[in-house]
């Protein structure tokens, strides 16, 4: 087909959009926006479907102090805005719209949003993942300021404080062990009477004097006025409710990669993560992937950004090798 880059009007303005681009990026977190910085700068016509809340997970984080280059730390919302401004300045369009359907069976690929439909010669999927939430009162209120799902990110803030960890798998116990480096006491609350975590984690956790366990129990409410002060715990066997004082709650009941949209079109692993090689290729030539939707391991802003940069450079190479 004849390829003509065309600027599609943003969905927010209510126009009928029908843009064709060299590249569409699905997802507006650190991975997607870093990719857009690179492809925009390489003068590839780039459209970013950034979702309804552009910025991704850091946008919900009060203070990001481990993103390299910011010795004084940076507010998560500000960091997200910086990514976005930089991508736009290099010519990428960043639009807050949600993708509802994709067709990767032929080039150009089709990306449908509620209002607009885009066609692209290459796609980068960077939809991210979300920590599974408890869905209890107080969780939303304190998310990012006392309730966390990342000890690597936030453990540091709990030096000599008391924390609660919810969960009993590898992640919960690994992060509990990590938290003992900072916290005075770590209380693991688990809904069963045994840990599902692998043996080495169990042994280490049981041997660690800083870790206590509350078995057969679920957290029903996170309490506090300005900051988290405690949790309400219910024993699932006898129904008894009790209060536990704590300064922070770490929730490890699983991550959910946002990959439903691609099921049947891209190869997913058993946990729903998109399968890619180290160069961020998916099983479909021309479709690349970056960030947490392909990463169960690291989940850091800078590691997501790194994969975004790699995906962008691979997309650029692909567009050069397979002209349309």
């Amino acid at each position: 087909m004849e390829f003509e880059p065309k600027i599609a009007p943003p969905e927010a303005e209510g126009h009928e959009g029908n843009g064709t681009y060299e590249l569409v990026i699905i997802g507006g977190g650190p991975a997607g926006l870093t990719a857009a910085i690179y492809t925009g700068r390489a003068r590839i016509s780039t459209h970013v479907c950034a979702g309804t809340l552009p910025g991704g997970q850091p946008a919900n984080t009060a203070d990001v102090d481990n993103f390299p280059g910011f010795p004084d730390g940076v507010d998560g919302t500000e960091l997200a805005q910086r990514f976005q401004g930089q991508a736009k300045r290099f010519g990428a369009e960043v639009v807050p719209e949600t993708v509802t359907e994709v067709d990767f069976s032929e080039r150009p690929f089709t990306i449908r949003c509620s209002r607009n439909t885009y066609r692209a010669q290459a796609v980068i999927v960077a939809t991210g993942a979300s920590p599974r939430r408890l869905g209890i009162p107080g969780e939303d209120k304190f998310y990012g300021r006392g309730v966390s799902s990342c000890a690597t990110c936030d453990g540091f803030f709990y030096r000599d404080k008391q924390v609660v960890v919810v969960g009993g798998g590898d992640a919960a116990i690994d992060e509990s062990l990590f938290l003992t480096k900072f916290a005075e006491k770590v209380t693991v609350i688990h809904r069963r009477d045994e840990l599902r975590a692998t043996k080495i984690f169990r042994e280490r956790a049981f041997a660690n004097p800083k870790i206590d366990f509350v078995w057969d129990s679920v957290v029903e409410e996170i309490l506090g006025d300005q900051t988290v002060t405690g949790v309400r715990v219910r024993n699932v066997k006898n129904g008894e409710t009790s209060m536990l004082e704590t300064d922070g709650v770490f929730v490890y009941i699983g991550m959910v990669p946002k990959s439903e949209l691609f099921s049947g079109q891209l190869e997913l692993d058993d946990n729903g993560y998109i399968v890619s090689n180290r160069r961020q290729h998916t099983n479909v030539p021309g479709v690349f992937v970056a960030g947490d939707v392909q990463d169960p391991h690291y989940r850091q802003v800078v590691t997501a950004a790194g994969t975004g940069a790699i995906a962008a450079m691979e997309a650029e190479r692909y567009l050069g090798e397979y002209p349309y």
Partner: protein
Amino acid sequence: MNVDFVAQEPSKPDVYDVVIIGGGPSGGSAAIYTARADLSTLVIDKGLTAGALGMASKIANFPGLPDPVEGAELVRRIRDQARSFGATFIDEKVLRADLQAAPKRVWTGAGGHKGRAVIIATGAMGRTRRFPGEDRLLGRGVSYCATCDGAFFRDQAVAVAGSNDEAVDEALTLTRFASEVHVLNPVPDFNAPEKLMEELRGHDKVTIHPSTRIAEIVGENQVTGVDIIDQGEEKTLEVDGVFVYLQGNLPITDFLGEGVSTSEEGCVVVDENFQTNLQGVFAVGDVLCKHVKQAVIAAAEGVEAAIAVDRYLHGREEFRPDWSR
């Protein structure tokens, strides 16, 4: 988070949890994560402008920094961040290492350091070619370390080849011993902090030779001089020592010694967690060769290795996160 935190005084343990060799974007970012994970962290680096990023004039594609920054400024920011979490930085050059020992050992001109884990992040600015006479006279007047060998040149004349802050710093070190220091800069300008440059220019023992290349290092059993091409003109400087701090594009692995697997091209070989064939020895950044040279990718690698180091040190390296089951 509204939690007050006062950075702890960097302690100086006998054995560090991790020694990071190279403080560019990958080594510096690794240090942010290891120090923040409460691992005692030592970073050994040759200087702010000694690496590829430090030399870069403007970086516009590092995410989060929409206004272009100088490479050296980005490196400085990353290092300040690592320091704020307790990492210790020293300006030295690693000359030798024993990475099979426990703890692992690295030696600089100033002494030895021990680490339970090591991250190699030395980059790929090693020199591609040697000058005629250089190899033959190595240790006989040719040196790469003024801190180590400067004292041998008391009241003698020496030449220093290079243009970055490492070269300038080493030239200034040599002024404490030598009677004359000739700085041979292959390009017209230096890439070094103005403060160092002022000191260099103002020093009465120092003669700066801009746009000057070395043709040959001469001497029978000991260096007696160096043939130079000074802005097109060939001449010989009579010196007793030649200190070389020039750069190229080879991975810097010459200090590694026995044990660490490298490819035919001299690149360090790692597994998916950036661990080399030696347990507890990791490598990231340009020293791996296969990578495009982008600061954000190097930083991401440093962070992944840092997380792997933490797991290694806590016997958790067999961990396979399984978040969604």
